[in-house]
């Protein structure tokens, strides 16, 4: 079956400019530098990485909020970047986004009803005018908010509730794919679970496919079927949740997993501690060959010369972009 979303060698570079009257480009921030993956219907693909890895830029480009520098994205086999006018509007109905910050993702001057109803204003063919109010109330109910609060303003809601409003808005047009860009990162711990459960429930009820972007590996594991690990604009490893968390083969993934704190003091002594040295290199001037080599304990000459492709290697089962990929069990109980 064709994947619902196919991303092929997606590239996004931002020019770095100087000059006052006439601007010269002196370099590029290579935010996304050749990313490829598939999203299947009904699944959740988690995208993890630390700051600067390009995952948020990836979200922007997938949503066509930023134009790509190169590469293709296909939705149901059709080229997303080639769409214009009506076809583009139709696409907008199918792919939506939930943003990170509940305090800036809602227009403070609009009522909740207007915010959740705006998709219907922009796409009037989805619902006739008379029905819109009812649909908005239903959406509020579906995300666990009181439909009576339709006339309230965002500042009268808590962070978790605002995030629910953002989810209701994304759901309004009944999209097939929702890109979740760090949807729970800005929420309190006790509220995160509520919103995560909501996302899981909605996926099951509406058959949604998610691209779930986050930096918190525990959160990603909970919701994802497959996971892609990003570093400096590239995917370094991709596989099922069980493969990535249970048998990671890329050194960066391994370092990430050994760094994530586990809420169980009994496991303190037994954990493998891989500690990376140095800082993340600048995305304007990434290292040659394998970008991770400057912090990698396995780096050899080949790592400097040859860019490792994201392919299944050796005895492995899932693609990994490392010349010395080797599966390892790192987490205590998996």
């Amino acid at each position, binding site marked *: 079956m064709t994947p619902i979303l196919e991303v092929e060698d997606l590239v996004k570079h931002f020019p770095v400019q100087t000059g006052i009257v006439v601007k010269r480009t002196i370099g590029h921030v290579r935010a996304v530098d050749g990313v490829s993956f598939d999203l299947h219907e009904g699944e959740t693909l988690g995208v993890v990485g630390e700051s600067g890895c390009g995952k948020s830029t990836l979200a922007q480009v997938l949503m066509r909020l930023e134009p790509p520098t190169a590469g293709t994205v296909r939705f149901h086999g059709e080229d997303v970047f080639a769409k214009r006018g009506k076809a583009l509007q139709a696409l907008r109905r199918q792919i939506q986004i939930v943003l990170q910050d509940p305090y800036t993702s809602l227009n403070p001057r609009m009522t909740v009803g207007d915010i959740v109803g705006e998709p219907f204003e922009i796409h009037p063919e989805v619902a006739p005018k008379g029905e819109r109010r009812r649909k908005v109330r239903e959406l509020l109910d579906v995300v666990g908010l009181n439909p009576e609060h339709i006339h309230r303003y965002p500042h009268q809601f808590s962070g978790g509730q605002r995030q629910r409003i953002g989810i209701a808005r994304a759901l309004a047009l009944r999209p097939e794919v929702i890109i979740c860009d760090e949807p729970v990162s800005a929420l*309190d711990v006790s509220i995160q*679970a509520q919103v995560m459960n909501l996302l899981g429930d909605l996926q099951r009820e509406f058959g949604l496919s998610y691209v779930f972007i986050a*930096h918190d590996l525990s959160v990603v*594991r909970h919701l994802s079927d497959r996971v892609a690990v990003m570093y400096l604009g590239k995917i370094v490893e991709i596989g099922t949740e069980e493969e990535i968390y249970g048998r990671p083969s890329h050194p960066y993934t391994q370092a990430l997993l050994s*760094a994530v704190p586990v*809420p169980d*003091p009994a496991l303190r002594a037994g954990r493998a*501690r891989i*500690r990376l040295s140095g800082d993340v290199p600048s995305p304007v001037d990434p290292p040659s060959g394998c970008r991770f080599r400057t912090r990698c304990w396995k780096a050899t000459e080949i790592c400097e010369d040859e860019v490792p492709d994201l392919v299944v290697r050796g005895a492995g089962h899932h693609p990994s972009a490392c010349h010395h990929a080797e599966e390892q069990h790192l987490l*205590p109980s998996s």
Partner: protein
Amino acid sequence: MLEKATGASPLLEVDGLHVEFRTRDGVAHVLNGVDYHVEAGETLAVLGESGSGKSVTANTVMGILQSPPGHVTGGAVRYRGEELLTATPERRRELRGEHIAMIFQDALSALNPVFTVGFQIGEQLRTRRGMSRRDAERRAVELLDLVGIPGARQRVRNHPHQFSGGMRQRVMIAMSLALDPDVLIADEPTTALDVTVQAQIMDLLAEIQAERHMALILITHDLGVVAEVADRIAVMYAGRIVENADVHSLYANPCHPYTRSLLESIPRVDTKGSALRAIRGLPPSLTRIPPGCPFHPRCPMAADVCSDVVPPLETLPGGRSSACLFAEELVGR
């Protein structure tokens, strides 16, 4: 109340602290009787979400509470038995940095962008220890080295914005150690950092603490970090301590419904569980704290009595305590 068997007072203790904030919407009861203490060489984690009062307590201890709008309305803070809240501002300033130091979540705003890090670290040494400029700079280089900043001798001349997030945090740690404090309060030191950097910083703190036999008060909301580094934990909710226990007991057998629910609601990286058991509802608004137990509107075990009585922090067997009327039952489970 919190004195050890030998009669000596704890290194740092907070006793029944009450703090109010006058806001536009009324009086916010930010702290409603906070008790905790820490000894030399141990790590106390103060665990709570936003609004729990964990940062306000730390700011009050350090004497940097914004006042107005904050006012201490009761309780005491003692360092080696000495009352701090009634001490003179000079004495408090003396203790700050020299005996009790603090590091914050956002190093970029805690450090002055206009001066070099060497100058800022050296400033305390020059003013408090009377060191010469050259000696202060030399010591600053040593400190930067200690916290793992490569090329310390050159980097001592850099400004804060020239460091990455993790490095800036290390600079802040170096600054806090300049006067060899006995107690270090770390307020969400790694929340804004990537997980790999977080691990490095937590390792560094542990190393420094062990070396200097320093007391560390770690303020955080991250149950994972706490499990990895803490000796004892004080769980805060709505300006109160709701549970106090050593780390192993707390995780193996939480004795307060809030702690229990929190542990059940977090996703874990080492297992893929089924649906998380979310805590329903929202943390209370501090201007309108519910009567009785502040957690009762959200508590899965709430009974009628919970809205009438404010549960006191009761001691339980094993040197732990819990502010729940049904704590005894939970101990057994």
